[in-house]
């Protein structure tokens, strides 16, 4: 998922879908300055990691942001700070033990 977002064009596509709502490749091509085949390729990558979903309407595919994929991204951030704070608490705990041992 994170690799998928390493590409700036893919971030723009995702932001466009997020702020503008679901749309087709044709509409995306009008809003994002890359070719339709390139957009299709990027959508395939975003779809593979669960950040974008699509449904068929007649001959067209309509693409939308997959909220669960974004939630997963948020949970990464949550884990990031969780890990950092746990490491902090462990450090404080270690220094408490050291101080107690010095007293004994």
């Amino acid at each position, binding site marked *: 998922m994170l690799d998928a977002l390493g590409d700036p064009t893919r971030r723009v596509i995702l*932001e466009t879908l997020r702020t503008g709502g679901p749309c087709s490749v044709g509409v995306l091509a009008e809003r994002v300055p890359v070719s339709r085949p390139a957009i299709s390729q990027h959508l395939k990558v975003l779809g593979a990691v669960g950040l974008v979903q699509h449904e068929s309407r007649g001959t067209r595919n309509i693409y939308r942001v997959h909220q669960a994929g*974004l939630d997963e991204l948020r949970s990464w951030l949550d884990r990031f700070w969780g890990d950092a704070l746990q*490491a902090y608490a462990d450090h404080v705990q270690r220094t408490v033990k050291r101080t107690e041992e010095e007293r004994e």
Partner: protein
Amino acid sequence: MTVEQDISPLVKTVVVPVGVDRAFEAFTAETSAWWPLFSHSVGAAAANEVRLEGAVGGRIVEYGADGEIATWGTLSHWEPPASLSFSWHPGQDPSEAGQVTVTFEATGEGTQVQLVHSGWERRGDGGRARLSYDTGWDYVLGKYVEHAR
């Protein structure tokens, strides 16, 4: 039609069995001793230190053997031992920075440390900036994923 945008702040708390003064000191002056640099840094294996310059306008800087690797943020509030706030943009453009506030409060068991990560709603584009923020983590978190494997 727009997609629902989640701009709620991220809140994390931890309780440490020491007084507020000690809790603040460990957090701000001994950061390198506990911060998981191998996974939570821009330089990953190259990073060997992180230093927080304790004053308003001070920076949080990641160092490697050859000096500064990255500035993670800048302190906007410094009130030892009660709280501190800083912008947060490791590995990304400072204009897309989030805001982190850490507060230290005495409890029966020691000190409760609460970290609130917000700031995307400060910007006119709301959730959109938030998304930029999230995606700005791809490098740092990518390293984390590599490590976790």
